[in-house]
């Protein structure tokens, strides 16, 4: 029977949660790399036993780990992330220019076509690629050199490249997102990039409505069957594009807060979208102390709260941008992790939820693999 393997990155290690297709009973493995921050763990879609993990620490810096047996054993891989050429400068909080400095790897995105190729989104924002199974890394410098890299600036969490979306129908096309620069697309395999932020509005900190960069994009999601349709959770506003990011329109509709971090699309229904509304700017917990996932079956605008099995009082956790994922079992499973250490799973598209673990360290990322 097929099953699901959930890969959880936390502030103090990685955890691997495994279940059969019913997704009722879970086996927990971990902590792996106990005491280290695990920003992201993700498996190759071509080889589910090939996992990549970003392990970092304020004391000891960045490590990349690789597993070839589904997370049972790990080996340290390459960790040299050296900017191409002279790194240059970007905008600092006070408006001055500040040198680009490597801090950590936020996101690892394995290729859809080659298990040895993997992309890394790093802070300070840049995109790297390895074609040898994470042994060596090389920057894809066309992104920072698109012409306005000097106007990128850090958000409150740092200037991070946190989202990498690969087009399954066109290996030359990919999307990335940076806080706070915005969304970018390449149509030539990463050689050149252009900002795709038309329609995003950030009236308080970005008065120019046509500003090409400077937007605080939190997350982008795509359904593989509709690669030209993108959904975005921005700092404020849930957005949608139907032309590969050339133009965006707001679809926040009746959400109780249009602020949030993650966004995900149902595995089998391209118009079914999930977000977790969060209060902002400084609270960063669910409105009214009720942890609610909101689901739209209409591609946005009309949203329904999903509450069954989720705490509906006194809940003040956050759900971070990389901490939501969907499996592709017959009945789509939805997963998300909280800064309170819970990982919730819904085996029925969001109708009902269970905490499959309650007391992990703060969850930074959640990915799920659908096992054969």
């Amino acid at each position: 029977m097929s099953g699901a393997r959930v890969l959880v990155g936390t502030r103090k290690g990685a955890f691997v949660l495994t279940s059969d297709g019913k997704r009722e009973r879970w086996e927990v493995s971990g902590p792996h790399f106990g005491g280290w921050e695990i920003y992201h763990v993700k498996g190759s879609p071509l080889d589910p036993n090939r996992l990549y993990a970003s392990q970092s620490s304020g004391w000891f810096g960045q490590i990349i780990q690789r597993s070839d047996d589904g997370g049972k054993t790990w080996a340290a891989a390459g960790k040299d992330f050296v900017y191409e050429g002279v790194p240059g400068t970007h905008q600092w909080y006070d408006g001055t220019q500040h040198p680009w400095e490597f801090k950590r790897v936020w996101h690892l995105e394995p290729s859809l076509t080659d298990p040895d190729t993997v992309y890394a989104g790093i802070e300070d924002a840049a995109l790297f690629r390895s074609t040898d199974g994470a042994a060596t890394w090389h920057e894809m410098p066309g992104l920072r050199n698109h012409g306005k890299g000097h106007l990128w600036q850090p958000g409150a969490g740092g200037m991070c490249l946190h989202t990498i979306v690969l087009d399954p129908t066109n290996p030359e096309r990919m999307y990335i997102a940076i806080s706070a620069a915005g969304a970018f697309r390449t149509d030539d395999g990463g050689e050149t990039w252009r900002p795709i932020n038309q329609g995003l509005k950030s009236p308080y900190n970005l008065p120019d409505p046509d500003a090409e960069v400077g937007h605080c994009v939190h997350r982008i999601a795509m359904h593989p069957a509709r690669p030209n349709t993108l959904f975005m959770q921005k700092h404020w506003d849930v957005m949608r594009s139907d032309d590969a990011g050339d133009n965006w329109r707001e679809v926040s509709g009746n959400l109780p807060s249009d602020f949030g971090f993650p966004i995900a699309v149902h595995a089998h229904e391209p118009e079914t979208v999930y977000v977790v509304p969060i209060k902002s700017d400084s609270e960063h917990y669910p409105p009214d102390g009720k942890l609610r996932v909101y689901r739209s079956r209409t591609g946005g605008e009309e949203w329904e709260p999903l509450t069954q099995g989720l705490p509906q009082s006194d809940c003040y956790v956050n759900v971070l941008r990389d901490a939501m994922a969907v499996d592709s079992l017959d009945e789509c499973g939805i997963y998300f992790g909280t800064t309170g250490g819970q990982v919730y799973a819904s085996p029925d598209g969001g109708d009902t939820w269970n905490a499959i673990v309650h007391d992990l360290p703060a969850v930074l990322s959640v990915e799920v693999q659908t096992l054969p």
Partner: protein
Amino acid sequence: MIRVMLPAHLRTLARTGAEVEVEVEGPVTQRSVLDALEGRYPVLRGTVRDPQTQSRRPFLRFFACEQDLSLDPPDEPLPGAVAAGAEPFMIIGALAGG
């Protein structure tokens, strides 16, 4: 042989015990000891010193013979007892953070 004592997380990473031994040719300094350590355990490269600047990571300290050597120049000779293998060169993680 030079004895080097590692903090717990680096022992796990390098899959060693608390103390390792490295061979240093020439003067025994912070730089030569750390070069030898990274040569024997490549996974530790960049964990003690910034991989670009080669400077000590801010939350780590170096001790030997009951002296804090953290601020000493990297090419200054280490105490004779370290060079003789009688005392370990200690890499200590600062007691900081959450």
